[in-house]
């Protein structure tokens, strides 16, 4: 266990460096000279060369990368945005990332808040009409990706029924968040329902459940303390998977509903060749992703003491 964690932690910085360097190189390989965009209409060879030298774009890629990372690590300085002149990348991303986090949080609340109870219900009513109905609906929901539900919801609830606003952003407690959050949460609901159902069915067959019932515990205690708690372990471990699924949805929902989050920002930055912003976001996203994977992996033995890390052959 200890050796495994230490090995993972030693490998972690290398992983982040490799991944960010590849991103950095790909961005530099991309078309469109950032200096051209920076200069706009005032093109002049001499000025262009001077700016290139000033920004350090003439140096080898490794040196550019090292200089960039030095700023990031020592001063948390991601550079200055090309597009929003005079604003630091930290400012530009910082405000947008909060918006995306709120949207994702709302989507997760919807996913888990609906998915877990419904999955539990289906498992406890296994084999009845309820179970079949829930499983069929979950299957149908799973076939409804974000780019399908978004226009349909917009058509029904905003244009025909006129109960929800069509687009925009007003913070976590504004009604504007309702539609995008539902759209993002729906595909996850199906996954959670099926996971919880399968997992509860598995736990129901365990002997400790029979023991708990046999010793006369109230049904509610059995359900929540013995069944649900154990059944949620696989759900927790697939949480990273659910988060990754949300990432793709964030892009589409933010663009479609005009929400000023990081998904829309990175597309705007890509179109404007705003490399510093893209790079900053890529570093933050990668680090977050790698850390989230690590945390999920380390959580296995904490949740389920029967699993021992590093034991056996599967790393």
């Amino acid at each position, binding site marked *: 266990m200890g050796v495994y964690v230490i090995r993972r932690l030693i*490998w972690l910085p290398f*992983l982040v460096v*490799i*991944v960010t360097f*590849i*991103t950095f190189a*790909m*961005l530099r*390989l*991309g*078309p469109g000279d950032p200096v051209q965009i920076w200069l706009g209409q005032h093109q002049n060879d001499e000025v262009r060369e001077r700016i290139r030298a000033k920004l350090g774009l003439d140096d080898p890629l490794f040196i550019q990368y090292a200089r960039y990372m030095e700023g990031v690590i020592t001063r948390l300085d991601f550079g200055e945005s090309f597009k929003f002149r005079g604003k630091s990348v930290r400012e530009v991303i910082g405000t947008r990332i909060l918006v995306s986090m709120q949207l994702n949080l709302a989507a997760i609340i919807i996913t888990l808040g609906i998915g877990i109870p419904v999955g539990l219900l289906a498992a406890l009513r296994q084999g009845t009409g309820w179970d079949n109905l829930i499983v069929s609906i979950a*299957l*149908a929901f*799973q*076939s*409804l*990706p974000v*780019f*399908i539900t*978004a*226009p*349909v919801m*917009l*058509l029904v609830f*905003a*244009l025909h029924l006129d109960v929800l606003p*069509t687009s925009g952003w007003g913070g976590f407690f504004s009604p504007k968040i309702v539609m995008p959050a539902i759209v993002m949460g729906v595909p996850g609901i199906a996954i959670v329902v099926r996971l919880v159902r399968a997992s509860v069915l598995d736990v129901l067959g365990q002997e400790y459940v029979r023991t708990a019932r046999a010793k006369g515990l109230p049904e509610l205690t059995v359900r929540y303390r013995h069944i649900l708690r154990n059944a949620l372990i696989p759900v927790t471990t697939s949480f990273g998977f659910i988060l*990754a699924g949300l*990432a*793709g949805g964030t*892009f*589409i929902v933010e*663009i*479609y509903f005009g929400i000023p989050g990081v998904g829309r920002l*990175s*597309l705007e930055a*890509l179109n404007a060749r705003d490399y510093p912003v*893209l790079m900053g*976001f*890529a570093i933050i*996203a*990668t680090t977050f*992703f*790698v850390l989230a*994977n690590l945390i999920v992996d380390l959580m296995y033995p904490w949740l389920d003491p029967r699993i021992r890390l590093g034991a056996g*052959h*599967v*790393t």
Partner: protein
Amino acid sequence: MLPDRSGVSTRESQADRLDWAESELSGEQILEMDSQPIRGHSYWSLAFRRLYRKKLAMVCISIIAFMYVGSLFSPLITPYDFRAVDLQNTRQGPSLAHPFGTDRQGRDMLTRVIFGVRTTVIITITSLLGGTLVLGVVLGLLSGYMGRWVDAVIMRMGEVTSSFPEILLLLIFVSAFRPRLLTAVQAFEDATGLDWIIRLGVLDFMIISVGLAIFGWFGMARLVRGQVLQARESQYIEAALVTGASTAHILRVHMLRNILSPLIVSVSAGLAGVAGAELVLSWIGVGVFPPTPSLGRMLFENGSPQVLLNHPHLILFPIGAVTLLFFCFNILGDAVNDAFNPRTR
């Protein structure tokens, strides 16, 4: 894994049955039964029989097969050319001449939806079967069987590729390499006189498939590696080694056959994911570029409130096609999983 699943009805079990049924059978009958070859059921025939019994799954498999085969012949079965602009008849509702109506340039929607399905079909084949499967299986086999530094290098590479936030990296990947490749291919076309590489969207298909394969092979490789690690300890591999079989032979004959069933499950479960990635990329505008029709692009272009209110058919037909495709992929993935892993139900 595989050998002990085969041969459900062996001679012993037949004999057991004869024991208790003895009273009902005459000696002649027993002799007759004994002389006939006993037909066992292999793991595969049992799995396919389980699959065959699921009616909904069979319907979905037929629909998928129909879409895959149909898209081969899409230029023949579509009533119009997908690029044929008809500015006299723009944004028309469904009619006999245009069953799905026409879009804002008067192009026939039925044709465009069929070609959009074809795009998705091509991407799933090239990316999943070509890229992910080949890369994942080969690297996973090597990693699991060779062990030591080969294993370490492949696994570390996999961790790197799976540490990228996929959509963001694909965005950057496509915008970094597409313009360069486009210029190169244009030069190539000019030099050789070929004119179909860009026109038919082959370049887009290649870029997306390579991109998806780069970020998607690791899951498959890890699965294969785990299976190989299990199989490597078994006695039949030892026996093969003793008889002097080469590494390539062992990998191909003994290892690959044993991992076939988890592979089938994983591929059929992965179809929806790959199709979804292509649609998301095309929706964002970095996947398949116009004029090649893509359902993702259609959903993006026709998703505005104005179109939804005034010409809903422009988006409802693509939505229908995508939903049907995804539904069938999901049912297929489930059914195959149930049929090939009967214990994990």
